[in-house]
């Protein structure tokens, strides 16, 4: 999967869970830049991504995946 396709898939999942338009998810978006991205939405998002990519994130990763770049890195490490 290309980086663009991966971002597209992640952004689509994030937008549905957070409840915002997918266009609002940018490659450099983070919890600080998206108001509706709170801890409850974060956990739902993590579990949705786990289902989407058939992976399981460690709790240590979950607390660090607070931006799109960090989410992409975590997924790449798991699916590699």
């Amino acid at each position: 999967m290309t980086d663009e396709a991966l971002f597209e898939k992640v952004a689509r999942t994030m937008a549905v869970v957070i409840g915002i338009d997918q266009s609002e998810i940018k490659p450099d978006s983070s919890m600080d830049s998206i108001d509706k991205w709170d801890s409850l939405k974060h956990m739902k998002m993590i579990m949705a991504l786990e289902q989407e990519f058939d992976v399981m994130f460690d709790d240590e990763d979950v607390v660090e995946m607070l931006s799109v770049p960090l989410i992409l890195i975590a997924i790449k490490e798991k699916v590699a």
Partner: protein
Amino acid sequence: MADAHAVQIAQVKEAFALKARLFQGAVDDQLATFGDAWVTALGEEVSVYFNNDNVLLENAVEGYGRFCIEAMRLQRRFDKTLRYDAISYAEALETVYQNDAYMRTVYLPALLLSHYMWPHHFRQLQWVRENFFSRLSGNGFRTFCDVGIGTGFYSKELLRALPDMRGWGFDISDSSIDHTGLMLQRWSLSDRYTLRKQEVSAEVEGGFDCCVSVELLEHLEDPTVLLRSIRRAMRDGALGLLTAALDAPNRDHIYLYRKNDTVRHQIEASGFEVLQEANFAAYEVGEGETVPQAACFIVRTC
């Protein structure tokens, strides 16, 4: 913000920024929701129990973060199954209450901070202060037992609010007993309190004027055994505070309560009259989701 505790709240914010950034937004949310009452309560705890020690506070916040991640993951699974993971009391005892490393680094710090960081736990605290402690004040109540002391939080609160009362705390966990001892020592309340290690459902020497048991019922395979034991430990006309967690799939929760009604029926069938009750939810529930709640009851023996 209450200026007297601005420093402590800044310490808390810094600890979350360093150790549990995912949850740091909750500090501002709680401040906005509860204002000075919350600042004062948390500020005092940081000053006294944490002794303004940043490292101690950061370690507690780190444990709180780990606990919350697990709890939130379990909650989303529970949305689908509406069942708690099957665990026996013996297994919970071995993997949680007698697991000193987990108790000290995750479980107890998380429980303590949850009283301030979880909206339903802070609302419960306010409700208890306003509705339960006020019933005890000035009415000749002298003794209380706290069954399942956890961190010792509610024993501390009761001893602080009612300077004429003496307490006895019961728990099976050495870690809980140590934590409570330290809590009461730091709050200078140890001289009015006795700690006993024993099974929570075991017979307690009786005659107490008052009993508190906060979020213990759901940890047991048969909560009615505990309720009857508590009743026998109290004198006729004694008052009690009994609470239970509903829809809260923590790793050591065994008995699933989904409504206040179920808890109330068990309480009434065990020899208590319910004088007042409340239900507090952790957050606004979304479609197809469950939400942890605190079911709270002020009771009188009958």
